[in-house]
């Protein structure tokens, strides 16, 4: 009867039949995933925008934070490395498109070559991001945190250039040791002590009249406000923590949320790049094995290419809103 369905009626080969909107099932699903993931990143970036607008007059200035370049120690290179990372990711996107194009022409060797370059580009990007994290966490100049939660940084009075607390902190011998389980209560321990204590930094500051305090607030021109010596002393007397580098609780660059959002957004994006590299490696191995030659089409390379371009697209937006704006 026509109401029964036999196995001969059910269409196999979902991936080779053109479907509605002229796209196969797999490609449509990849687009849907991309839409939902794009909205996830939108949520993150928008909450970053909210936090930044809430603290619009005291947010750290990105040019002053991201100034490292690999191999150039001590050189102030604002934004150069991040620009290079952007270019590397866009370039890996290009090699991915070329791999997809080679797949359309069924040229297996070219697909292999371009996918290999894409994987290398992605791996270099993830490594670069890890390097940026390392520098961010380690910190550069150090700062103090006041009782009210404000971060105060230090500049030289005559040149207005940043001064590191390593340069002026004095050494005071201390009888305080890190409480580990083998030198105190066996069931308690604490993380490593700070490199400098508040007293060491404060005394060093008082001894050197050429150092001034730089607060988080930004003036009309967009520069951080530098206090005069009296106001500086007043602020330093309120210090309760020495902050070096960054963690999820406080950071030496300014607002606590700055480091939180940096880790969260670039971490999520880096995780997507990393998973993209893993998926690319799997597909690369499949191409080498000739799976798609046998299948007759390289559509899997195209679908994975869509994911990779999505990752690149998100980075373009993160780069703009986090580093440039």
């Amino acid at each position: 009867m026509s109401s029964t369905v036999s196995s001969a009626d059910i269409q196999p080969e979902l991936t080779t039949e053109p479907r509605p909107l002229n796209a196969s099932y797999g490609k449509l699903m990849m687009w849907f995933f991309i839409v939902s993931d794009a909205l996830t990143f939108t949520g993150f970036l928008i909450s970053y925008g909210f936090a930044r607008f809430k603290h619009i007059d005291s947010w750290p200035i990105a040019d002053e934070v991201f100034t490292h370049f690999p191999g150039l120690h001590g050189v102030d290179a604002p934004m150069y490395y991040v620009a290079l990372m952007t270019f590397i990711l866009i370039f890996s996107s290009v090699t991915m498109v070329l791999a997809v194009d080679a797949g359309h022409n069924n040229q297996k060797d070219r697909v292999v070559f371009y996918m290999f370059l894409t994987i290398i580009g992605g791996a270099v990007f993830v490594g670069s991001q890890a390097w940026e994290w390392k520098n961010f966490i380690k910190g550069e100049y150090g700062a103090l945190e006041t009782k009210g939660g404000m971060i105060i940084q230090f500049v030289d009075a005559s040149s207005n250039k940043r001064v590191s607390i390593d340069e002026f902190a004095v050494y005071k011998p201390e009888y305080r040791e890190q409480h580990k389980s083998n030198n105190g209560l066996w069931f308690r321990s604490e993380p490593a002590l700070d490199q400098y204590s508040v007293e060491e930094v404060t005394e060093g500051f008082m001894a050197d009249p050429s150092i001034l305090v730089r607060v988080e607030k930004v003036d009309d021109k967009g520069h951080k406000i530098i206090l005069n010596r009296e106001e500086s002393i007043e602020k330093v007397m309120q210090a309760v923590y020495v902050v070096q580098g960054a963690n999820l609780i406080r950071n030496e660059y300014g607002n606590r949320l700055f480091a939180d959002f940096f880790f969260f957004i670039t971490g999520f994006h880096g995780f997507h790049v990393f998973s993209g590299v893993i998926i690319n490696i799997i597909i690369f191995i499949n191409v080498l094995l000739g799976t798609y030659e046998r299948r007759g089409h390289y559509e899997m390379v195209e679908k994975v290419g869509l994911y990779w371009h999505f990752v690149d697209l998100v980075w373009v937006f993160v780069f703009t809103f986090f580093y440039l704006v």
Partner: protein
Amino acid sequence: MAHNTEHKLEIFRGIVKFKSNVQKIWGVLIFLSIVTAIEVALGIVKPEILMNYFLSMKLINWIFVILTLVKAYYITWDFMHMRDEKFGLQVSVVITLIFLIAYAAFIFLVEGNYIYDIMYEGFVSWNF
């Protein structure tokens, strides 16, 4: 399955037409690199004239946002081959995203601005 649609080889609304798909890809890369270089150069130099405000955002930031949208357009349209897809697929992906993102960005930024004003004018001082 043979790739049964030809790639469209024109960009910039037909002003530039490439000879092959591979050429188009390199062409788009060069364009994206130029745009990125302009953005980075502006971000480093920060010319004074661009620091004026237009609709409560600095001109330089307007340039960044618009250039980013241009880059997004070319990455989606040419690298993700959206240019070659059917109109229905293009619209269902792009219109959804544009509407939701624009709406969410608008309400969040307005809210953040409001909170800033409250903290600035009200009696809440340093809210950490």
